[in-house]
């Protein structure tokens, strides 16, 4: 129907000239990387990797080896002794489990609620839609750290201090997730498909379940990935509210804050806390890079 209303514009522009062979004429962009480009980039990547590599080296050495000059740069054979030491000296296993529970439930919930709200904002007509959407986006500008004191008071009132719920429940929805899904579903779900569904007698929730959710899958994967990583790395709020029931980042910080720091122990903890995220990054790095390149994640 809409096609008839807008007849195709007549072509007035001249035909596009054949593409020049970029390298032969040295025209065109992007340019081919020179040896210097590669050298600079490899140096930068080496600088990115080194601190993590270093934590691996230290965690596979004895404590004495760390204090050597020049520093030891190759991994030793004590990784598993040190890991055992970490689990002996703190309740690191429980912290890891806590982090998995927290990050897992936050991820599932954020993906679900964001898709639901994104569907409503992108595809359903209701009064106040625009105002509510702007309001939702505006909330992402609010610095969360600053409400931490009353939030803590609220948690004491609810009796949630030292309980995982204190970290999970405030994280169940994010403005970013809602905005991200609204953007994505607006493009990914054709209106015709929804109309056809309605003709077949689908309820709105039925449309969500049978049409929107399957279409949202690629975006849900990216959103889930980012949410998990953010929840896993979160530190400030868990530090405040989970003093005696730590997540892995809080356990790590207490490992590092003894009066005489055992660096081998601490850096082994660092490695253990980073490993799950590193594994995700190795497997899904392409999607993560792509998501960020779309400007998909905010700092």
């Amino acid at each position, binding site marked *: 129907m809409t096609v008839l209303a807008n007849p195709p514009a007549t072509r007035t522009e001249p035909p596009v000239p054949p593409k020049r062979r970029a390298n032969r004429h040295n025209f065109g962009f992007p340019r081919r990387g020179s040896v210097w480009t590669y050298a600079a980039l490899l140096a930068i990547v080496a600088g990115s990797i080194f601190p993590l590599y270093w934590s691996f080296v230290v965690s596979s050495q004895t404590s004495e080896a760390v204090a050597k000059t*020049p520093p030891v740069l190759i991994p030793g054979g004590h990784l598993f002794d040190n890991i055992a030491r970490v689990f002996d000296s703190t309740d690191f296993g429980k912290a890891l489990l806590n982090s998995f529970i927290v990050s897992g439930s936050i991820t599932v919930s954020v993906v679900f609620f964001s898709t639901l709200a994104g569907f409503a904002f992108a595809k359903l007509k209701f009064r106040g839609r625009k105002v509510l959407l702007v309001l939702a986006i505006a*909330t992402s500008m609010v610095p969360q750290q*600053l*409400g931490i004191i*009353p939030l803590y008071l609220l948690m004491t009132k609810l009796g949630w201090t030292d309980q995982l719920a204190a970290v999970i429940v405030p994280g169940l929805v994010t403005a970013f997730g809602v905005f991200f899904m609204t953007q994505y579903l607006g493009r990914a779900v054709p209106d015709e498909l929804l109309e056809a569904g309605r003709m077949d007698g689908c309820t709105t929730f039925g449309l969500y379940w049978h049409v929107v959710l399957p279409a949202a899958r690629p975006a849900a994967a990216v959103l889930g990935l980012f949410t998990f990583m953010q929840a896993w790395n979160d530190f400030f709020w868990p530090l405040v509210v989970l003093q005696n029931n730590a997540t892995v980042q809080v356990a790590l*910080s207490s490992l590092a804050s003894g009066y005489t*720091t055992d660096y081998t122990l601490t850096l082994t903890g660092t490695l253990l806390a980073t490993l799950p995220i590193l594994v995700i990054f190795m497997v899904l790095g392409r999607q993560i890079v792509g998501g960020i390149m779309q*400007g998909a994640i905010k700092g």
Partner: protein
Amino acid sequence: MAVKATLNRLDTKGSPYLYVAPFFILFGIFGLFPLIYTGYVSFNDWNLLDGGAHQWVGLANYREMLGDSYFWNALGNTLSIWVLSTVPQLLAALWIAHLLNHKLRARTSLRMGVLLPNITSIVAVTIVFTQLFGRDFGMINWLLGLVGVGPVDWQADTWSSHLAISTIVMWRWTGYNALIYLASMQAIPHDLYEAAELDGASPTQQFWRITVPNLRPTIIFTTVISTIGGLQIMAEPLLFAGTSTPTGGSDRQFQTIALFMYEQGFREFRFGYASAIAWTLCLIIAIFAVVNFLLTRRIAKDEE
């Protein structure tokens, strides 16, 4: 039939509100309410150790804050660390994005390599760097020793601790910003470069005359985001001290405002005072975001 029609109407008109409600309800309870309540708390003498007893004191907390040398010290430290980390970070990100914008082999691996620091946690990064910046056995002092510079006690002085903390922030965020820049670089039309090349513009000229002006909105975005993040820095100075004392070093030489707020709230349990600091920090962030936005827009315009 009538019942079915009514149900249908209810479903199409009413259900959207149901779908967006969870977000607004949860945000209201755990996001907006605390923020506004912080304002109320800041006008009270509120100590958690008294079992939550509190007394309205008006602007007393704010007055005390303005006369508190620890507050001004923390503000100075925050600004210093923010400038030291943001300016070089964004310039380096621009350069890295430019490098990545070439035709490259192993493109994805290089991008992943650059992004790697960003996916690690602040805690992990800070712990590793604290070790690298160690006075006695730290690798950075060892490297400095090779070129004849004596060992630096990084935690001990204002300038050295700020430099070290800024390095940690830079290491974690430069690659992220580079990828954001790269994405917008790739959206710049190729014929702009071809035309410039025909006019005899060198690659450097093309970079400053075409690439940078076209990145203006993205540069504004990254500057504002880094400012908002930079002014709230807390975890890095907390962990850089080695022990979990929130004073930011023995002389508070690297205590930031957010850390000062944390100290007053959760170590001294002076919730009213800490809330006043929080509100002030919020105001500072808002002012900075606006000034930043205006300034960056101005600078980028002059480039054209």
